């Protein structure tokens, strides 16, 4: 069946737009990485070391939870274990990831 010309044009425009959108993550990542590189030079080395445990949990939080939703603005530590148990089931977190994220949500 022949597509109407208007519909075909619409599909071509959208295909180009989506093609651009799918390549944007890579382009955008490169630009942001270079910005991070510049700003990282200004960071204090000692601060990096002291927060390594937290940043590991933070990294895993971003790798898993933040893929679907932003973190809530804040919640009481009394429910952090429940949140993590829910996420372990929902996102099929490994036990190690669950523990690292729990440490991140409950810094000592």
């Amino acid at each position, binding site marked *: 069946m022949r597509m109407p010309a208007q519909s075909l044009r619409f599909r071509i425009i959208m295909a180009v*737009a*989506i093609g651009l959108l799918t390549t944007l*993550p890579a382009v955008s990542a490169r630009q942001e990485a270079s910005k991070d590189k510049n700003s990282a030079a200004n960071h204090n080395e000692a601060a990096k070391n002291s927060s390594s445990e937290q940043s590991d949990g933070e990294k895993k939080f971003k*790798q898993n939870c933040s893929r679907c939703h932003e973190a809530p603005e804040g919640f009481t530590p009394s429910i952090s274990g429940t949140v993590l148990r829910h996420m372990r089931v929902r996102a099929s977190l490994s036990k190690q990831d669950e523990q690292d994220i729990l440490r991140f949500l409950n810094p000592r």
Partner: protein
Amino acid sequence: MHRSKISRAWVFAAGMLLGLFPVGGPLLGQDTPLISGGAGFITSTNGGNTTYIPVISPVLAAPLGSHILVESRATILDSYFPRGNGQTGYKSSSFVGLSYLQMDYLANRHLTVVAGDFLTPFGTYNERLTPIWISNFESAPLIFSLGTMNTGSSVGGMLRGSAFATSKVSLDYAGYFSAASTNEQFNAQRSAGGRASLYFPQTRLEIGTSYGRLLEGEHQNFAGVHLWWEPADSLVKFRSEFARGAHSQGYWMESEFHLTRSPSANAFARGLQPVVRWQQTFRRSPDARDGLPSADTNAADFALDYHFPHDVRINTSYSRQLSSTGNRNVWATGIVYRFLFPTWRGK
């Protein structure tokens, strides 16, 4: 009608009470049961008719002992829509429904056993993106019903978990069996299926496949693949799914711009989140029950969402659908507040 509403309310109340009064001994302070969810007001304009929908979608999560979690999500809404047929004014209809009510038993580091009414694990949208405080668009993708057996929920058992996980790659899986249920709150079709996904955390690339088989009526097979790519330092997230059924197939692709991640954006711009979704469905043979349009359809959806402080967001979207049965525009707006709090004060 009134009695039916009351009985539905009792079902939800019973689910809430199951979690509010733990039976597994004293809980650790950090394991206090929680109530989360979203409350919102949504409008949708289709063909000049606007529908207004106040909605609340609470989630309960209650750990019992160290291995069990009881969790449930409900949706309570009222729809106000034009009377039509030349009449002025609006009429309304109410809906109270459970999305899931399940008990999870964390057997070991690789296996969780789920029993009850759970979201069917086919593709990614049903389990991950349906909550109103997460979804970028007010409408689900056109292929949503393929593989989720129309209802999106299953009643039975599911095995799921992380088969293995290293710093470079992880494999997670879910397999389920559902009995047929015509109960109003636990509506499900007899089916079986599952999903497996490989996730590469360093590149944040996920690729997975799903399979489902309807074990009643026509005994259809459904298959699907999904691909998510969300580079760590990128402002853009890309998600996509393809699903195929016996009579139709289709796909959706979505790109979401996260200016919140940009260190150079100002405070206002960080709240902005433009989203584009492109969808196509293809009809191979007629089937009034699979939920897809009766003719091949192309759809482009554009959203501009804004994240305010205190977990409030505004969603606006425009959808253009092109089909041989007629083209249409759908405008939608919504404001959603996400809440999360313990059921009581913890230690």
